[in-house]
């Protein structure tokens, strides 16, 4: 049991992370229109908040976070990724959020530290 707990504790919880991220985006971008000059500010806010909360989870992971904010003007977008890692311990999580004027895609990769 304890080991299960430990195991749980040590693995990557996708849902939890998604919730965190979605909250943050909503808080930051909310109902704003796309403004090219203000986007860097928003991104900074989002990253800081998210990484702090991820760190608070106290899990032995390295986090990589990627944010893409696109204006909604009918263009298409396609992203993909391939990995060479430890499948048991490492994990990934993607969150897509949109409002009337823009899309926001956030990818989080968690790479476990050796334990």
């Amino acid at each position, binding site marked *: 049991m304890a080991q299960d707990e430990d195991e749980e504790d040590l693995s990557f919880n996708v849902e939890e992370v998604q919730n965190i991220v979605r909250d943050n985006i909503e808080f930051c971008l909310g109902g704003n229109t796309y403004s090219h000059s203000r986007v860097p500010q928003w991104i900074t806010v989002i990253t800081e908040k998210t990484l702090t909360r991820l760190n608070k989870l106290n899990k032995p992971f390295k986090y990589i976070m990627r944010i893409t904010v696109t204006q909604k003007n009918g*263009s*298409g977008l396609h992203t993909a990724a391939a990995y060479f890692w430890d499948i048991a311990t490492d994990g990934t999580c993607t969150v897509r959020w949109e409002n009337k004027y823009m899309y926001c895609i956030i990818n989080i990769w968690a790479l476990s530290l050796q334990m």
Partner: protein
Amino acid sequence: MEPGLNYLYVKIRKDFGQQVRFCEVPAVMLDSIDPNKLDQKQYCLRNPTSNESQTVIKLSEHYVNTKKIVLRDQGVNHVEGGWPKDINFQDEEATSRHRRRFERDDSYVSAILNSYDGLKHLIEQNNAIEMYNMYFKEINSEEPVEKYFVRKSIVFNDPDERPIASIGWTHEDDSKIVVAYCNKNYPVNRPVNKNATCSIWAIENSAETYTDFIPPSFCWKVACSPSNSSEIIGGLQNGSVCIFDIRAKKEPIAISPIHLAHRDPVTALLYIHSRLNNEFFSGSSDGQCMWWDIRNISRPTDNLVMSIHAPSSPDDGLKYTEGISALQFDRTFTTKFLCGTDTGYVINVNRKGKNHAEVMSAIFSAHKGSVKSVERNPFIPKFFITCGDWTTNIWSDDIQSSPIIFGTSHPKQISDVAWCPQRVSSYMSICRDGIFRYWDLLRKYYEPIVVLPVSKYPLLYIRPNEEGKFVAIGDTKGSLNLITLSDNMVYSGDRDRNLIVQHFDREARKEHILETRVREIRLKLKLEAHVPVDSTLGKVDDETLIHNAEDEYRKVVGEEFKQFETVPTTRGKSLKTVKH
């Protein structure tokens, strides 16, 4: 990033460096957004866009001005006042009474005492500085330091590059330079002179001559008439003299006949200061000195043969003469003149002497070679300067044994020397190394004050103009250089004359003393040499001395032979035959 963001964890040592278990995960799509035509239609390309830009230098405006002060003139009317109403201030008694009453007041005394200190301070300040005083008026102004400079003004070039034989300045206000060109070397294989033209240059125009004149033979010497500016006399290579009038024509108006004139080229030519300025005399290396009258140069008026050692009688002719190389005539001694010879003597000749010894009144053994130039000091005629071989010497008339001042030796031969016409203590010398030197006896004794390289070629002749401001120097390649001197080199200082007279007198006295001493010593030696003749101790004359010497010799030789006879007889025979 917040600085406080950190995650601490603890790890056991044995868990370090565990094996890495990586596997490859193929590409996984992360997200995809389809293109939306409707959305696209909501956006269009804005073309053209108006954009505002301004590239202007940013300026700001600010002005400052001084306050304007308005001035106004107004008079002041001085009226005496301050007196109380009841006193008439014109009335002396009333005012004095009022004053006395005030003075008795107590506060008056203390008020005066209080203001005493301040007033005293102000008064002392006022007395300490006298604003309207002329300071330093007792101290004499210092004389400015003399700066000498010479400058090469103009160069007059002869197109044929003939060496300059003689230079003269015309005696008029706008002085011109008369130049004769001639190569004085002896024509050994072929004639060295081709062109006999002599020129006159004006100082303003250095491009071409003012005028030319052509003597029949090559002109060795020129002299300008002191009274008539267009009259020039020339001494020629064939020994005759000729007169030119440059306004009339280029050829001479009169020439002396050759058989009556000199036999060698004329080496010296001078005007005599007579009443009418019509006499001149010439000297040449044949040793004769002839006097001529301008009005008639068909024959010389007087003739003098320069012979030092033997008395000249008409029979001897020109046997014992010394060639003349320089002549100088000074106004102060109308019947005397100085003559420098080719053999290095300078003779002070008195024309009015009765016999030969009186005529050659003083003979100075001046130089090792020919005396190139001799000149009296224009201010102190008793002293004259000579130049020849490598030095210049200054002599006094009275002392014949040696010069009173020896000049320093020059690196190359000196060609000419001249006193400054207006400066009593200076003279100038030129040298065959092309350098002009200006000497001042009062300032620097052993060194020239100014040294100026004038030309690359040897300099031959120097002549200052009458004023002394310009100096004409001629060299072997026909260029006549005109040098300007600064004012302090042309004119004397205040006390220069006295100082130089004292200086010369001192030197002359020293030489005089030396001369008398030398004479005394010689006299004493002569007396001592005669003493044995008078004594009775037996004649020590040469004959007996010789006999004594011979006897001694025979004695010594005889002794030696006796010694040899005892030696083995192989050599004895030959020895014995040597008997005397």
